[in-house]
């Protein structure tokens, strides 16, 4: 049982702030994913938890114990690195048993625990091999095995799948998820890949410039992003963000999304637009539905636009067009043949749109 708590954690490199006043409580058995663009402080946070990076101020607790001053070896956490960092001069077996050998664990015990890890990860055939004789996926598995063998309080993963090819990455992602269900331990996982974050996490933390932008379940951060950054970072393709004019006339509020395309403001948003003349509108590509006929109910938006490009992907076709000079993507799930220049009807469910303040970029609720 071990929860991990960060209190007011700050890391500075000289004047540069890497992590600023981070408060976070990670309960036992949670799969937490830190995600963000490079340089956002996610890896630094992980390394501070591991004890590999000194903290500037704040406190780190692992299982109710203050570990600020403790060496990495005394924190009982295991880390898996992006480049695997297997010991090249040792066989797979020796790599797995190394931490136990250092801890002077009984030989038979080492053997049982190595065997256990080998079985969990399917490394039976490879035990006697050296890391240089393994493929990327196998090395990654050994690196995970090395972490498992210690039975740590928490696993720390630092972009473990970034070096694998796309197919293997998907496969290993599933394995990590299964592993978590089997081991029931706290996992803190750092990635810059939002798909990994969405598929693996119980809870996602989106970071930018050393600050936490949003914490929530994958569905929460996807459906209710708190600002433009989160909205565009989570989801693929990124959410379409449009600058729109708000036009109030005779008690009616209209939103201008393009030349001569005016849409009625949904009732529930009207009050938010007081005194505002511009606003960001966010629509996910899948919520911008191409339809053949106007089958709208009253709450939906509807407009037509000529498309610039169509990319068929098999299960869907992505349509590209411009609104207010900005490129917009729409996903067509039941593809029918379209060609460039065709005028397509689009339908938007207004319950699925997002508005952001033009100055603060924060969501308007």
């Amino acid at each position, binding site marked *: 049982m071990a929860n991990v708590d960060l209190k007011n954690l700050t890391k500075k490199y000289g004047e540069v702030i890497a992590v600023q006043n981070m408060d976070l409580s990670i309960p036992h058995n949670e799969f937490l994913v830190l995600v963000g663009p490079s340089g956002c402080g996610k890896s630094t946070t992980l390394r501070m938890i*591991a*004890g*590999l990076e000194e903290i500037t101020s704040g406190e780190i607790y692992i299982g109710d114990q203050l570990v600020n001053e403790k060496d990495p*070896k005394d924190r009982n956490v295991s880390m898996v690195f992006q480049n695997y960092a*297997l010991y*090249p001069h040792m066989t797979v077996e020796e790599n797995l048993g*190394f931490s136990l050998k250092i801890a002077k664990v009984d030989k038979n015990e080492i053997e049982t625990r190595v065997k256990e890890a080998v079985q969990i990860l399917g490394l039976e055939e490879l035990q006697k091999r050296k890391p*240089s004789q*393994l493929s990327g996926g196998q090395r990654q598995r050994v690196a995970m095995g090395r972490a498992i063998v*210690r039975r740590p309080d928490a696993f720390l993963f630092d972009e473990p799948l970034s070096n694998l090819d796309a197919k293997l990455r998907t496969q290993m992602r599933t394995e990590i998820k299964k592993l978590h269900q089997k081991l029931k331990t706290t996992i803190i996982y750092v990635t810059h890949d939002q798909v990994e974050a969405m598929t693996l996490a119980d809870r996602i933390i989106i970071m930018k410039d050393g600050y936490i932008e949003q914490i929530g379940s994958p569905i929460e951060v996807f459906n209710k992003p708190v600002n433009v950054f989160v909205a565009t970072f989570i989801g693929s393709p990124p959410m379409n963000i449009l600058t729109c004019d708000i036009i109030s006339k005779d008690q009616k509020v209209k939103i201008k999304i393009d030349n001569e395309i005016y849409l009625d403001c949904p009732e529930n948003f009207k009050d938010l637009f007081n005194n505002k003349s511009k606003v960001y509108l966010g629509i996910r590509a899948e919520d911008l539905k191409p339809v053949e006929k106007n089958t709208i109910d009253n709450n939906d938006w509807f407009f037509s636009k000529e498309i610039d490009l169509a990319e068929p992907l098999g299960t869907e076709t992505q349509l590209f067009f411009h609104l207010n000079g900005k490129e917009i993507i729409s996903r067509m799930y039941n593809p029918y043949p379209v060609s460039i220049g065709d005028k397509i009807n689009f339908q938007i469910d207004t319950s699925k749109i997002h508005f952001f303040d033009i100055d603060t970029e924060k969501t308007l609720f």
Partner: protein
Amino acid sequence: MKKIKKIAFWFLVLFLLILVCMPGIWIFISAFRPNPEILAKPANWIPDRWTIYEFTQMFSISGYVSVPAFKYLMNSVIISSVSTVIAITIGMMGGYAFARYNFKGKNKIFLGLMLARAVPGISLSLPLFILFAKIGIINTSFGVIIVYVAMNVPFTIWLTDGFFRQIPKEMSEVARTDGCTRLQAFWNVELPLAGPGIGAAAIFAFLLSWNEYALASVLTRTVHSKTLPIGMMDYLDEFTINWAGMCAIAVVMIVPAVILTFIVQKHLVSGLTFGGVKG
């Protein structure tokens, strides 16, 4: 046609090899024949008479000692190995520090070490002679060892720094999260990986000490501390040079160095192959 080309190629290789090895071969041949034959004109390539006279003389099998080569050999072995062990130990620690830690003035200190290496050894010989004479360590192995350590440390630091840099720092980090102290991580993971590099640095340091002449010629005066290169000068008399003896002692000098290099070179070559990280 192809075959002729191949044969021509190998003849060229053979010719170049002989060219490079000629001085060495000449020394070997000359060590096993009497002086007049060495001086014969035109040169006599294949000796008429083989002899190990000079070797028996210097190692006193016949009871008469011309030059105390065994003593010189021992001095050389002791001075070279002790100074190498000390230089490589200090160099390894220094190299590790330069490769892994950040500290104030790091680059300047490193540059300073490299500049120290650029000072010609011979220019230090007189100051060292006066200093050593004053504190009473002239003509001792201890004094020579100190000088050789000072000479080799910057070099070994520079070499091992490079080798430690090649080992990803994640290696030691993962070892530390695996339960190692920093020292254990160094001992169990980084040192074995840098082993071949450290071996190479050690060989260079050893050979540098083994072959050093300029400083030793000033700091050693008697059989008590003279090394082989200095001992060689014993064959130089006022009016004559015993070429055969000189070549024989040269052989005594060359053979251990060659053997050592052969033993260690396998490890040097097989060394730095990293499979631990994605390359």
